[in-house]
């Protein structure tokens, strides 16, 4: 019984994963670039949390990525009037 439930759960997980990947694959190149930027931001935040909690330091290449992304950031839109 347990095995059949387990099989069902795994099958459902595979189905959901397939749906999500089909969606990602159907995106236009511009949308894929936007998703990549989201992924990068999320991954970097995970690394920050890991380091903040005493885990491994943020890898050098990700530090470089963060520096590059934000060193010339145009923050004029963020200035409150």
């Amino acid at each position, binding site marked *: 019984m347990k095995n059949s439930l387990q099989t069902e759960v795994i099958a459902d997980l595979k189905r959901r994963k397939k749906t999500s*990947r089909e969606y*990602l*694959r159907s*995106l*236009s*190149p*511009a949308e*894929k*670039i*936007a*998703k*990549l*930027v989201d*992924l*990068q931001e999320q*991954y970097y935040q995970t690394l920050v949390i890991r380091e903040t909690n005493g885990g491994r330091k943020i890898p050098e*290449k*990700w530090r*470089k*990525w963060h*520096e*590059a*992304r*934000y*060193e*010339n*950031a*145009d*923050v*004029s*839109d*963020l200035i409150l009037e």
Partner: protein
Amino acid sequence: MKNQSPSANMREVIGVLEDLQDVGIIEKYAIGGAFAAILHYEPISTIDLDIFFLLKEKSESPILSLSAIYDYAKKRGFSFDHEFINIHGWLVQFVEASHSGLWTEAIENADTMKIDNFNAPVIGKEHLVAMWLLAGRAKDYQKIAMFREAEFLDETKLFDVLERHDLMSKWHREKWRFADEE
């Protein structure tokens, strides 16, 4: 990175690459690596944008061949280190391709991909697979597995590329690394 859409930002990067052609530093270029995999298939995590290029004036030394690009970056005010040039918030890695027949062919036969309202040259799927096989790192094999899973490779074209660049035996030898999941 400026507060604009990532694709608009990418338009500016492509603009810089076109300018590098206009000022006579590079002859041809194409997007490769994981970024090309994303454009062909699905978003995966990568920090940089690999640009494979051919110099206008050929150089014997790979280091000298990059110096013109670094001089250009300095003039344009782009920061850089030994690995990347920061172009409008993207870490761009330039790879001079003339010493490799496979890489040169990949640039010359690149696909033109429409991104919003601009076009970008992107290395074709079969050439990417051959380049990953040649590089042979774990992450390269993962990308080959991903492309095989997609079932969008033209196998006749792929095997033709592999055959012409002496990669057929490596393909058969390493195939178990990127075999189908199921």
